[in-house]
């Protein structure tokens, strides 16, 4: 049966949806949606096809937007999406993830919420903010944000989260209790002798490869890492990459050893693609070796960055890979990264890129 792919793009000024058929040669753009709110993360539940967008408006606060008709119409709710009186109020939603019929949302200031009714109402999962490390959590450049949500594919009690800059935390009991899982990841911004703390690392993006015993990968402020034991130990995979700094990471939809990163030139060097030349870096062996993918990408005078949730893959064959820049350009590859095309430009700054594949 014919299929079509939707790229869900969250931007500083609303949501855009860019659509093609399975060939992915020509694209049609719709939007902006969601009243041009800043939208940090837009995802689709692959089971229902419902699209959810998490964001926050400077005037009106945080909300989860929802569309059940591929983006034609939208509703929004923040019912229950609040901390107790007296605590710093929630500014924005930063991440959304479906799992086993539930929906999770990560917010700023960092915390975790759950919805059991498709995003209409939300319950605070207080266990995370009850972790003894919480008084020490420090905001990163983007704020104190819970930006990565990784549900276990087969065990709905397990969930990993990434918080900037508190690190990676894991629960095995549905959120009641949490364990910091940062061993082996560096904090170059701490004094000598303190660079490998239990928590406080600046994780930028946490993803899990497909499969039962798949590795976790993370792009950190200070290096790129792989874990084969659920985050209890992390190994550096930065050798062979042009820098230790970047934001997004995206996994192949079927091959757990294939990962895409987009290294930038460093945290204090402008945070551009290195040397003004754009490249996605791909590994086929879980990070032991890397290759630069430059075909079709600008190789001079490119001074953009790519933010933490702004790269994704689709589940077509061969897999599509997509990334959006903080200067509003969207690039696509329909051949697993070998060649690239610009498919949209002059958009607002792109915050997130996710995909949905549906039967036509």
């Amino acid at each position, binding site marked *: 049966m014919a299929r079509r792919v939707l790229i869900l793009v969250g931007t*500083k000024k609303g949501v855009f949806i860019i659509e093609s058929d399975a060939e992915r040669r020509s694209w049609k753009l719709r939007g902006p949606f969601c*009243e041009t709110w800043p939208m940090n993360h837009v995802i689709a539940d692959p089971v229902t096809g419902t699209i959810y967008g998490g964001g926050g408006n*400077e*005037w*009106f*606060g945080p*909300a989860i937007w929802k569309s059940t008709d591929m983006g034609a119409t939208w509703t*929004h*709710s*923040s*019912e229950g*999406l*609040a*901390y*107790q*009186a*007296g*605590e710093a*109020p*929630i500014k924005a939603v930063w991440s959304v993830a479906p799992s086993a019929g539930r929906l999770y949302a990560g917010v700023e200031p960092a915390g975790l919420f759950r919805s059991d009714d498709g995003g209409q109402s939300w319950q605070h999962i207080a266990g995370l903010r009850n972790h003894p490390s919480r008084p020490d959590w420090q905001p990163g450049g983007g704020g104190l944000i819970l930006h990565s949500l990784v549900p276990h594919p087969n065990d709905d009690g397990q969930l990993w989260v990434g918080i900037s800059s508190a690190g990676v935390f894991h629960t095995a009991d549905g959120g009641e209790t949490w364990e910091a899982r940062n061993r082996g990841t560096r904090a170059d911004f701490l004094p000598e002798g303190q660079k490998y703390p239990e928590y406080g690392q600046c994780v930028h993006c946490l993803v899990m490869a497909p499969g039962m015993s798949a590795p976790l990968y993370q792009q950190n402020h200070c290096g790129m890492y792989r874990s084969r034991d659920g985050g209890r130990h992390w190994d550096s995979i930065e050798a062979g990459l042009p820098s230790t700094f970047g934001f997004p990471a995206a996994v192949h939809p079927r091959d757990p050893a294939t990962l895409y990163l987009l290294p930038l030139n460093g945290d204090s060097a402008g945070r551009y693609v290195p040397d003004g030349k754009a490249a996605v870096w791909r590994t086929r062996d879980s990070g032991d070796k890397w290759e630069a993918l430059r075909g079709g990408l600008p190789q001079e005078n490119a001074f953009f960055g790519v933010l933490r949730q702004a790269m994704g893959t689709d589940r077509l064959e061969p897999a599509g890979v997509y990334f959006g820049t903080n200067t509003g350009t969207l690039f696509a590859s329909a051949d697993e990264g070998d060649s690239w095309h610009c498919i949209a430009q002059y958009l607002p700054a792109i915050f997130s890129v996710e995909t949905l594949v549906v039967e036509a």
Partner: protein
Amino acid sequence: MPNDESSPALPRVVVTLPAALVNLFPGSARRVEVSATTVGDVMDALDSRWPGMRDRICDSTPGIRRHVNVFVEGERATLATRLAPGAEVMVMTAISGG
């Protein structure tokens, strides 16, 4: 102008809402008449008629959001500000964004 008939015993006040807020709630209007003795009552009335509207104007501190202002008879107000019968309550978006 839409009327709120839920609390006819309370004094009536007139509320003006910003367009960016009205756009979020289909069926809402820029000028609304509600029954209220405080600004907090106004929020209750608005939320009763358009569920979720209070969360757009107020945060969980609890208070009026940092970049939203509420004026009563031209004076900046809080949720506790009392309203005279017939008072004009203006909800306005402050300067914000980028």
